[in-house]
């Protein structure tokens, strides 16, 4: 630690907060920010790389709702009397944009804790090019791509897609289908989930083709799926693409048993597909047990605020913020190295089970250490494993009367 | 047609020989079995009514159009169907009837495109032998300045090449082609729109270059100009050669008077 410094001012913004920052190189920065913690009532500033524009901007929007809700929960209570502030930068849903955003957050704003990003590819790009080699904490809000597992330094709130793939292959097999047609969105997420599914599935995958995002029509894909002869169709794609496909299936008059990965589910799909068009579909989503009280209250808060049901994405983003806030409160200084240590422990299995920031914060304020709390997220119990992946629960949803109904739970 | 080809073959030393050339656009035969030759060292005039096919002939000779039939020989080489730049490599350069504008260049720069085979046109030599490049560039520049002065447009040297008057454009076009120092120069109406006083001077320019060895084939409607300068004169009508002869002979040919000269001349 070559420095001490103070500077303070952090501030939000425009001029990059606490000067110094610089160096991310590691330790230096933390020092300076630490002192920050000591002397002022300035807000703690952390960063988030989100898809505000670009092809995943719909996720960015969902995340933002979760983040806003979480921030208000945190700032109602405060962290040692200070507020939490999140600088959100846009990745444009691209590597280039994501890296530039992270560069600004880490090397300009000097945040020691970085939430980000949405797409699995972007999260990894940020990790490799900005975060690795520093002690900034990176916690991805939405990435479910399988290869994030290989980077233990990169945490994520959303569980790896592998468990989903396994669950899906079991469900499809259990339903008695020995042939399946798969289409997946042509990116890291879609590809890695599908690869895992194909590995796990015992039957024959008779059709397995990627599709590009944002196309105006997928009638080619669905007519090929129909032509493949499989009666079970698996979709690993996003809501907009899936909704398009459903409508095209509907208006083409095809018929099949649908299965889907988590990202195809959401109110948006229900609103924008004909009644009954996906009834009977099974979807595996990571989830906190919905009947749990913390999820219930999250959902009702969310509905009160935004007049819509939360998505699992909003829940992940929510948990990212709460987890970050707890890590900050539990750490003795506001610095990467310290946060690295606490970020896993505040939500890890040891300690008293709590389901809200307020409750957890109280324990910490009463002198509790990071291991004295076990925050249970609204998206699941969290409990990062050594690879930085959460231990997610999976819930199997079935569409009944054009509504999602939970029919089963699977351990991650 | 037979008789005409003999005429062409009769040339002692044709630097350009057009044999039975044909080109039609849709139903229109713009060039209709045209045959003639240009003797080395002459200034050959090419006249004919508007729409006779003179410019089309130039386009065929210089490789801009692909003929439907017939051949073009330059310096004894069959250049039929070659690309314009290949024809130019054989020593034939042409100007355009409607002057071409070069955007974003000064008049002087626009002139410097003229010289052929500049060492500086080879990318790698810019780096391997910059000295040679500079040398030839200086020489070309001096030559360009000289011609501009002769054409009385040296004061325009650093003007944007697009911001000059219509007549000035014709002059630049002509001057540039001369810089290329071809063996055969095809001029398409070099003095249309040029002030008569200046046209007179151009006449002597052309004559001088001709004495230095350049062969000219020129299209021109200014009778005073062609008749003074050119011998022989080829008359084109409706795509084929109507007659060929001395200025005197052509001027008095009834068919030519009828089709072209009219009562006015």
């Amino acid at each position, binding site marked *: 630690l070559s420095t001490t410094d103070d500077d303070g001012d952090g501030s939000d913004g425009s001029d990059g907060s606490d000067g110094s920052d610089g160096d991310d*190189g590691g330790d230096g920065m933390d020092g300076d920010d630490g002192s920050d913690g000591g002397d002022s009532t300035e807000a703690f500033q952390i960063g988030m790389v989100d898809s505000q524009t670009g092809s995943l901007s719909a996720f960015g929007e969902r995340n933002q709702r979760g983040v806003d809700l979480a921030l208000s929960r945190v700032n109602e209570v405060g962290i040692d009397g200070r507020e939490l502030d999140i600088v959100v930068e846009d990745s444009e849903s691209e590597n280039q944009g994501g890296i530039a*955003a992270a560069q600004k957050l880490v090397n300009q704003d000097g945040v020691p804790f970085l939430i980000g990003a949405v797409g699995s590819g972007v999260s990894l790009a940020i990790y490799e090019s900005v975060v690795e080699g520093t002690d900034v904490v990176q916690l991805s809000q939405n990435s479910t791509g399988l290869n994030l597992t290989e980077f233990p330094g990169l945490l994520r709130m959303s569980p790896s897609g592998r468990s989903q793939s396994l669950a899906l292959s079991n469900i499809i097999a259990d339903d008695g289908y020995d042939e399946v047609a798969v289409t997946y969105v042509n990116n890291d997420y879609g590809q890695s989930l599908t690869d895992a599914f194909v590995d796990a599935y015992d039957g024959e995958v008779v059709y397995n083709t990627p599709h590009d995002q944002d196309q105006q029509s997928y009638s080619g894909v669905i007519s090929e799926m129909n032509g493949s002869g499989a009666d079970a169709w698996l979709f690993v794609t996003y809501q907009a693409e899936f909704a398009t496909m459903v409508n095209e299936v509907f208006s083409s008059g095809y018929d099949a048993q649908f299965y889907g990965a988590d990202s195809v589910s959401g109110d948006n799909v229900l609103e924008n597909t004909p009644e009954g068009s996906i009834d009977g579909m099974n979807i595996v989503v990571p989830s906190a047990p919905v009947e749990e009280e913390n999820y219930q209250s999250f959902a009702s808060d969310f509905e009160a605020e935004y007049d819509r049901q939360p998505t699992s994405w909003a829940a992940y983003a929510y948990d990212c913020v709460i987890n970050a806030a707890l890590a900050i409160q539990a750490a003795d200084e506001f610095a990467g190295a310290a946060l690295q240590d606490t970020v896993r422990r505040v939500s890890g299995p040891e300690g008293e089970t709590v389901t809200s920031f307020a409750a957890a914060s109280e324990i910490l304020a009463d002198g509790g250490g990071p291991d004295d709390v076990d925050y249970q997220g609204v998206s699941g119990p969290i409990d990062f494993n050594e690879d930085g992946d959460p231990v997610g629960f999976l819930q199997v949803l079935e569409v009944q009367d054009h509504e999602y109904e939970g029919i089963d739970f699977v351990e991650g | 047609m037979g008789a005409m080809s003999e005429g062409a073959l009769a040339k002692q030393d044709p630097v350009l020989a057009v044999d039975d050339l044909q080109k039609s656009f849709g139903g229109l035969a713009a060039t209709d079995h045209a045959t003639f030759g240009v003797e080395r060292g002459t200034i050959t005039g090419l006249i004919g009514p508007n729409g006779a096919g003179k410019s089309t002939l130039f386009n065929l000779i210089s490789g801009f159009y692909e003929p439907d039939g017939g051949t073009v020989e330059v310096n004894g080489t069959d250049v039929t169907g070659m690309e314009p730049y290949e024809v130019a490599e054989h020593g034939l350069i042409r100007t355009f009837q409607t002057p071409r504008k070069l955007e974003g260049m000064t008049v002087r720069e626009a002139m410097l495109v003229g010289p052929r085979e500049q060492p500086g046109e080879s990318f790698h030599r810019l780096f391997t032998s910059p000295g040679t490049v500079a040398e030839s560039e200086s020489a070309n520049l001096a030559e360009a300045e000289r011609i501009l002065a002769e054409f009385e447009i040296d004061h325009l040297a650093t003007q944007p090449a697009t911001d000059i008057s219509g007549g000035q454009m014709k002059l630049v076009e002509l001057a540039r082609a001369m810089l290329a120092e071809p063996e055969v120069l095809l001029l398409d109406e070099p003095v249309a729109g040029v002030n008569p006083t200046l046209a007179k001077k151009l006449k002597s320019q052309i004559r001088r270059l001709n004495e230095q060895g350049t062969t000219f084939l020129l299209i021109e409607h200014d009778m005073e100009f062609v008749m003074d300068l050119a011998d022989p004169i080829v008359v084109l009508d409706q795509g084929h050669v109507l007659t060929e002869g001395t200025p005197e002979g052509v001027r008095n040919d009834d068919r030519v008077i009828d089709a072209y000269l009219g009562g006015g001349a």
Partner: protein
Amino acid sequence: MSALTDPRGAVEELTRPEGWVLGVSVAFLLFLFVALLTGALGPTYFLFLVGLAGMYALLSFGLNSQWGFAGLINFSVAAFFGVGAYGAALFTASGSPLAELFEGVPLIPSLLGLPVVGLVVGLAVAFVLAILIGIPTLRLRADYLAIASLGLAEVVRLIVLNERWLTNGSAGVRGIPGFFAGWPVLGTFPEAMPGLRLEVIPGSPVLLETAFWRASLNVLLVLAFAGGVYFVLRRAHRSPWGRVLRTIRSDEDLARALGKDTYSFKMQSFVLGSLVMALAGVFYTHLNLYVGPGDLDPITTFYAWVAVILGGSGSNRGALFGGIVIVTIREGTRFLNDVALPIDPAPLRLLLIGVVIIAVMRYRPQGVLPPQRELIWPSAVDGGGAPESPDSGVRERKGGGGDE
């Protein structure tokens, strides 16, 4: 900026837009300098931005030598950029599928991992691609070339995305070393440098540590690339070679009539530009240490175009300037975003970028830095007994009727 790149150009020789740009640039540099000293601007982040600006400058150099010189409307910038990036990445990355592909092949495996080899390969692939794309498209008229190249770029992107055995598909390539990895001295320079702490303004120290030194190396690299390219382009631009290209740009038929093999010239210009774009890609690979198919998205093409047009087509200095403007537009708007506004922040930056582009097009003084000066081989003008080159630009002539 212009004073740096054109040492002969004394200040009084500048045209009005040049003076304007120079003034703004100096003011901007001063501003940056103060910001750095006071710690308001993180030095590492600043160097990252410099690297990015250098990358965009390279891209616009490349595009400029196609569009600005020869009038070729190339909408496949991203493809060449991506090919350069992928070429370098696949040859150097630890996780590259090439290692498997070339297993057992003599020699090649031992070359994998060397950034210099990656550089050469990136350029070589771009060279081949340029010729492949050039052969069919360079015969087309300008607008058609534009869309044909855009289409072919999409084909390249889809191949990179779908041919996993070669490119890793959508997972991208990771595990890329820095460009100087393995070099003597430079290879370990960032780690070897001690952390420095400068305190110019009391209370706002500036810290320079490993990441800073790593970023400095990147800047060094991009300066070397851009400097070399600038030297080559400047010479080419003022040469007879460049003049033929400009003739083609304005009137291809005229060039043909004067005996220039225009197809060959266009191909040379296209290949040259493509190589420069690929060079930008190589740099990008070692700057970001990760490449994915998203890096071939057409948006890169658009930004390169914006840079070239803002700087003034055909002007190398302008291209450099354009590169800086792009970074300011893309990254500078992040700061504007911090200003709290009562609107949904998400699309605000998009809006800002749009407004900035429109505003610059509206209020720029004549393409900021158009190629005003006559382009004649410099020593020819000095030594050839010809009059001095004019002191006002081609587009900027002022004054009364007489032109003397």
